[in-house]
Every structure is written in C-alpha cells, then in structure tokens.
C-alpha cells in the first residue's frame, strides 16, 4: 500500500460550492431528458434539456455553466443515462446527434457571457428581458447550427433536409423554452444566490 505523505490541499469553499452546483446542474440537465412535453408541430416530443443549457449559463455564469455541461457530457460518455431519451455511451458523442451535444457547453458559455457581460456573475434582477431573450436566441442558434451540421455530416441528408428535420420543427418549442426561462428568472421561485 502506497503511503501518501503530502499534506492535505483543501479545495476552497467557493470552488467546492461552485463544483457542487455545476455537478447538480449537470445531473438536472440529464434528468430533464426524462420529462417530455408535446411538440406543437411535430410528433417527436421535446425535452427540457436545452432549457437546462440556457439556465446553466444564466444561473452559473459562462465558466461554471460550461463546466457543468462538460461534466454532463463526460458522465454520459461513461454510461450515465443522461442523453436524449436516457441514452448513454461514447458513441453518442460521435453519432448523428453529436453536434447538438458538443454545442451545449459552448451555448451555455455564450448565454452566460452575454447575460453576465463577462466572467463575473451579476445580479439577475439587473438584466433586462431583451438581453435574456437575445442571449438565449444566440444560444439556440449555436445549438441548432452545430446540431444541423452534425446531422448533415453523419446521416446522408441534404443541408435543407437536415435543417428541416433537425431545427425547423423544434423552433416553436424553443420559443416556449425561452419564455419559460424568462418566467423562471423573473419569478421569486429560485432562492439560490
């Protein structure tokens, strides 16, 4: 048995709390895969995972929001059933929907950076609704652009078919998610500071 003689190098309180929040948010994005809602324009129901990506950026900021989604991808790759429909495994990170998955950390960082104007968190009450809508719209564009490119490269679809199947039918639901996210940010329901 090896003996470790180094002294204990404690993680600071701030990092520990942020790591706990990032990990819990990653688990929450995974849990959102199990709650589906009907899609008004398509038989394929929608889950709240993209909403989780937006909220990670808004509540955790660009750095820890992106870190949270990286944890989500790593846990899913190792076998936690967190991806679309409770799927898991490395193959999801290179398969047809890989573009969407890889876009999540980038989108969370972008949403966080726009909402908080940089790396430091600011009070969400001071953020105006147009900024929130703009940030989440930018996040949506990133997610669907990368997702459509992933579909286009992996499945033998034309770019137009990939855009219709992979983005257009989901956009009304994204509108509902942005509205829901604003409702959450603006309500007093979330107590965490």
């Amino acid at each position: 048995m090896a003996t470790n003689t180094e002294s204990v190098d404690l993680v600071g309180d701030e990092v520990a709390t942020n790591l706990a929040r990032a990990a819990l948010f990653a688990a929450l994005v995974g849990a959102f895969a199990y709650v589906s809602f009907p899609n008004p324009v398509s038989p394929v129901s929608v889950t709240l995972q993209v909403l989780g990506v937006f909220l990670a950026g808004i509540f955790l900021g660009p750095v820890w929001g992106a870190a949270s989604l990286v944890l989500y991808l790593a846990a899913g790759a190792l076998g936690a059933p967190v991806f679309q429909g409770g799927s898991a495994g490395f193959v999801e990170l290179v398969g047809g929907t890989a573009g969407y998955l890889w876009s999540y950390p980038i989108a969370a960082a972008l949403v966080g950076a726009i909402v908080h104007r940089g790396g430091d968190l600011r009070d969400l009450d001071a953020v105006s609704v147009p900024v929130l809508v703009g940030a989440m719209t930018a996040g949506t564009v990133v997610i669907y652009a990368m997702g459509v490119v992933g579909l286009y490269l992996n499945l033998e679809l034309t770019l137009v078919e990939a855009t219709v199947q992979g983005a257009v039918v989901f956009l009304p639901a994204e509108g509902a998610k942005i509205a829901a996210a604003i409702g959450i940010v603006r309500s007093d329901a979330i107590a965490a500071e």
Partner: protein
Amino acid sequence: MTLAYVPDDALAHRLDPRSKLLVQLGFAAAAFAHTTPRGLAALSVVAVGCLRLAGGGPRDLWAYRFALPFLLVAPVVAGATLGAPWFRIGRAVDTGLASYRVLLVLFIAAAYVRSTPVRDSRAAIQHTVPGRPGQLLAAGVALVFRFLPVLKRDLLTARDAMRARLGDELAVRDRMRIVAAAGINRAFGRADRLGTALAARCFAWNPTLPRLAFGRADAVALAVACALFAAALVGAL
C-alpha cells in the same frame, strides 16, 4: 430501478476501470466503422459477452428503457418522406442499423456501470486527465452519477404534483416553467447542502483514491480493446 454499481465477484469487477474504458472506446469505434448487418452481428456477441462478464443480464438494460422508443421510431421517421415514394426503405434500414448500434453500446455502458464503483471511475479520470481540471472533472462526474436518480425523482414528483392540480390544462410554456423551476430549486438546495458538506469534510485536491493497477485479466481486456480498434481501423480504410 436505476442502473448502478452492483458488488460482485465477476471478471469485469476485477478489471482496472481504465481498461474497461478503453474497451468501451474501442467498441464504439468498431461499431461506427462496421455499421453493417455482419459487423453488428459480430459486435452483438462481444456486447452480450461483456455484459455477462460483468454478471449482468437483460434486467440491467431496463435503466435505458426510455431510449428504446426513440431507437424504434427513428428508422420510421428517417424512412418517411413527403411525396412519392413516401417511404424510402434504404434510409430506414441505415437508420435502423444506427439505432441498433446505439443499443449495443448501451450493453457495454451497462456492463461498465454495473462493474465499476463510482470512486474507481473517479480515480480513472483523475489518472488520465492531468492537473486540477482532471480532479474537478473526476469529482464532478462522480457527483453527477450519484445525484442523477435523485433529481430525476424530484422532477417526476413535480410533474405529478402539477398534474394532480390539473396542470395539464396549462400552456406548454407554463408547464415547462413549473417543472423546471421546481427542479432547479431542488437542485440548488441540494447543491448548497452538498457544498457545505464538502467543505466540512475537507474536500481536498489530493484525496486518497483507490489504488489502480493493471492485473493479468487486464491484459486480456487490453487485447480485446486493441482488436476492436484494429477492426475499426480496417473498416475505416
């Protein structure tokens, strides 16, 4: 029932987590390079074998049951087109094979999760990814594994509570808001308690992790991983 580590004396339980991860990667690569009926038939044998070696069976795949409807519907959606000929068999078959490939990978993932304690996964990540990013990643992934079932339960409880109050008659936007707000509140509450507990229990950059060492059985696992990578390479060329 959520898939989790099951203590056992099966062969897979004695392997180093890193060799199991390499087998997973090799399997994904081989499955990707050989998405043909023959290739997937051969890989099915490997997948079932891996799950058996972890002491698992069909019961373990139950955790991934939510993925099954997606995998079954995908070929139908892919084959359907607007306009003649309405249904393209070739595309449906391609997507069907891709769906089956995901199913096989779920076998391997189930074998890994069943045979590997979370702290071993944590040690494996920490040995593979250097420095503090690796330590944060390792600790974070371990927490995600532990809290996923809890938060899933929180969300389903919130949704049931909403339904009991006729929430299904609300607009989709409001239903999403109610369920997500409840989920985030619970998650933040748990995160704050967890953060305090981590600090109180000396959460350190250099914790004592289980010692990992390659044994004789790992040589076999590594050979299997190498064979899978070689098969992937041959298929790609």
